[in-house]
C-alpha cells in the first residue's frame, strides 16, 4: 500500500491533482470513500478486497468537480479505481460527462472483492461481478499498482438465476418481479450510487407531468424499477453497486446483467470497454435488427 500512498502524496505535493478520491479503512472488513486534498492525509489511503464502492460516482458530482477548480485554474482529480470501476469512468467519458484529461486514474491489478462488507474474502463470498470478470488488469490507467493474484473460483449463480427466470412462463415472471419490486421503499439508493445515473434531474423528480408515480405502491415501484433498468440498458457496466446497497435486497443487477447480455447479443457491445466506440443508445446503425417491426 505504500506505493499508493507515495504516488498519491507525490501527485498532491507536485500540484498535479487537486484531490484524490480513494478508500480508507474504517474497520477490519470495511472501507469507505475518502476525498483527500492535503498530502499528509494520503496516509489513510488503502486498496484491498474490501474496497467495494465504485468511486466513479463522485466524478460527476458538481461539488467534486469544483474541487478541481482552484484559483481560476483547473486541476486534475485523481481517482483510485478497480479495473471494473475504470469501465464506469470510460462510460462517463464516452457520454461526455467527464474529460479524460482531467482525470488521473490510479488503478490496480485486481483479483476480486467481497460481495459485501464484513465477509471474509474467499470463493463463496466473492462479489458476483468478479466471478465473470475478464479485466483483472485495467483497460485504461495512468498508474498501475498492485501485484497480480489469483482470483478465487466461484459459481456464476446470477447467470443461473437469469436462466431460471427465462424458463418461467410470462405470468410467473411478472409475478416474480412484481413481488420483488413491491419490496422497494424508493430510497433511491440504487440511483444515488450508480455512476451512470448522473442526471441532474431524474425522471422521477419531474412532476409536470408526473410519469413515474413517486408513491412506493406496486405500480409506482414497478414503473420506477423498469425505467431505471431501461435507462441503464446498454450503459450499465456491471459494477453491481445497486445490488449491494439496496436495503430491500431487490436483485437489481439481475436485470442489468440480463440487459448487458442482450446488448452483447444484439449489438456485440459491452459498455465502458473502449474509448473509441460510440455509446450504444447514442448511436445507430442502418443495418440494425429489424425483426421486431411489422
Amino acid at each position, binding site marked *: 500500500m505504500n506505493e499508493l500512498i507515495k504516488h498519491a502524496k507525490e501527485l498532491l505535493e507536485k500540484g498535479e491533482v487537486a484531490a484524490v478520491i480513494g478508500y480508507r479503512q474504517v474497520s477490519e472488513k470495511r472501507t469507505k470513500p475518502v476525498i483527500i486534498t492535503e498530502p499528509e492525509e494520503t496516509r489513510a489511503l488503502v486498496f484491498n478486497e474490501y474496497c467495494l464502492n465504485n468511486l466513479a460516482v463522485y466524478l460527476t458530482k458538481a461539488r467534486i468537480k469544483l474541487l478541481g477548480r482552484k484559483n481560476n485554474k483547473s486541476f486534475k482529480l485523481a481517482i483510485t479505481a478497480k479495473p471494473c470501476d475504470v469501465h464506469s469512468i470510460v462510460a462517463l467519458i464516452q457520454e461526455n460527462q467527464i474529460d479524460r484529461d482531467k482525470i488521473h486514474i490510479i488503478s490496480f491489478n485486481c483479483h476480486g472483492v467481497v460481495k459485501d462488507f464484513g465477509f471474509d474474502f474467499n470463493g463463496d463470498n466473492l462479489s458476483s461481478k468478479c466471478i465473470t470478470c475478464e479485466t483483472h488488469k485495467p483497460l485504461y490507467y495512468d498508474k498501475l499498482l498492485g501485484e497480480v493474484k489469483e482470483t478465487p473460483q466461484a459459481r456464476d449463480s446470477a447467470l443461473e438465476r437469469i436462466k431460471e427466470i427465462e424458463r418461467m412462463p410470462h405470468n410467473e415472471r411478472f409475478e416474480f418481479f412484481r413481488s420483488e419490486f413491491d419490496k422497494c421503499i424508493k430510497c433511491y439508493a440504487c440511483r444515488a450510487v450508480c455512476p451512470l445515473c448522473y442526471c441532474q434531474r431524474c425522471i422521477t423528480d419531474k412532476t409536470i407531468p408526473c410519469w413515474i408515480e413517486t408513491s412506493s405502491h406496486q405500480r409506482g415501484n414497478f414503473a420506477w424499477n423498469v425505467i431505471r433498468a431501461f435507462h441503464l440498458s446498454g450503459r450499465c457496466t456491471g459494477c453491481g453497486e445497486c445490488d449491494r446497497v439496496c436495503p430491500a435486497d431487490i436483485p437489481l443487477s439481475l436485470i442489468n446483467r440480463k440487459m448487458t447480455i442482450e446488448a452483447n447479443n444484439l449489438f456485440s457491445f459491452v459498455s465502458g470497454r473502449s474509448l473509441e466506440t460510440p455509446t450504444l443508445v447514442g448511436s*445507430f446503425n442502418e443495418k440494425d435488427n429489424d425483426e421486431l417491426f411489422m
Partner: protein
Amino acid sequence: MDKQNWEPKIVAFVCNWCTYTGADLAGTSRLKYPANCKLIRVMCSGSIDPVFILKAFERGADGVLVSGCHPNDCHYNAGNFHARRRWDFFHKLLDFIGIEKGRLQFSWISASEGKKFADVITKVTEDIKAMGQFTSYKKMNSEFTVDFPADLAELEEPVLQESFDKETVK
C-alpha cells in the same frame, strides 16, 4: 366484463409524418379496421419515451402499438433508427420481466400504406384479443383504489371529454 363482450383497449403511438398520414389514407380509402386502437400522434417514433408505454398500461391498456416511418424515411433523418435500438432493448426488458411480446408491438407504416395500416391494426387487435385482458398489470393498478358510492358517482359530465371506456372512434 364477461369474456365474450370484452374488447381490448389498445393504445397506438404513431408518428405524425408517416403512420398518422397512413391512417388518414386508410380512412379516406374507407378501409375497415377494428375500433380498439386509440391513436396518439407524436412527432416522431424517436420521441416516444418508454414511460408513455408504461403509463398506457397503468391506465388500463391491454396492448400498445408503436409505429413510425420506414427506416431511411424519417422526417428527421434518424429518429426511427434511434427508436429502433431503444425499442429493441425495451422489448427485451419487458419480455424478461414478464410482459408478453405481443402486448407491445411495432411497425413501420408509410404515408402511402393505408392498407397496411388497416392490416396492422387488425392483426394487433386480434393478437391482443387472443391474449386476453392484461390482468396481471390491472391487478397491480387496482391497489389503493376505491369504489365511489353510487350516489356520489352521478356525474354531470366528465372533466375530460374522452373517457377510455367509451368507444369514441370517429
